[in-house]
């Protein structure tokens, strides 16, 4: 019983967190630069460029991207690994394209770090292909 109550609380948190973030950023966008707001709610939008409208999508994308990863890994748990990896790459490429095109980070240095981070993750995911059915020979695969 206790376990179920806690479970539903966390389900609500997982679903409502991106929604809350979206509503908060949409309604309070004029006040986000205030020191009070930065101190109280700042961790939700830390580092993003507040002068660009498209930057506000970044915190929401942060949650959505993770939710999609979880959905791919859970719902596709019985799929061949190659398909799961392809879906993860598409998810990651969409996020990478957003970062590359809209440059939502305020500091140029952090923006470069973010892109470097994205490229590194992408390279790592591509490497996993080497261990899947895409390599025909089993000896080569491992």
């Amino acid at each position, binding site marked *: 019983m206790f376990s179920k109550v806690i479970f539903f609380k966390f389900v609500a*948190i*997982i679903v409502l967190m991106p929604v809350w973030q979206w509503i908060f950023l949409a309604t309070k966008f004029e006040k986000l630069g205030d020191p009070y707001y930065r101190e109280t709610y*700042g961790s939700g939008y830390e580092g993003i460029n507040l002068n660009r409208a498209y930057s506000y999508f970044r915190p929401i994308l942060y949650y959505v991207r993770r939710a999609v990863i979880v959905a791919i890994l859970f719902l596709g748990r019985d799929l061949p690994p190659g398909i799961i990896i392809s879906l993860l790459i598409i998810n990651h490429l969409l996020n990478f394209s957003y970062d590359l095109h809209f440059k939502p980070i305020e500091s140029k240095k952090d923006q470069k770090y973010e892109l470097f981070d994205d490229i590194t993750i992408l390279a790592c995911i591509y490497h996993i292909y080497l261990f899947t059915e895409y390599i025909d020979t089993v000896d080569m695969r491992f």
Partner: protein
Amino acid sequence: MIELATYDLLPTDEFFPVMFNLKDLKPINERFNYLDFISSNFLMNMGSLFLVWLIMLLQTVLYLLTSIKCWKENKCVTRVRNFSSGGLFWTGFIEFLMQAYLEIAFAVII
């Protein structure tokens, strides 16, 4: 490495089943088992994160208790209140949920 990445630093797999009387703990499949999601039970999958969440809730309760009007003047109580609320409202909660979102989502969906 996986334990570190999933913030599972304490051996919760050993004492959670006894603590919450959890039975029939079987993994969904071998892949999830390898990633340390050893059962489909939410508390087991949350692991140490659940304890962090409890500590944050305790901090909130402590803050509310020390905010009672008749205690507000007491210096010692004020210190405890300042200590318990430091960075908790609301950056602490937001930071926790942002960092642990992936792990919590996994625990919930499994």
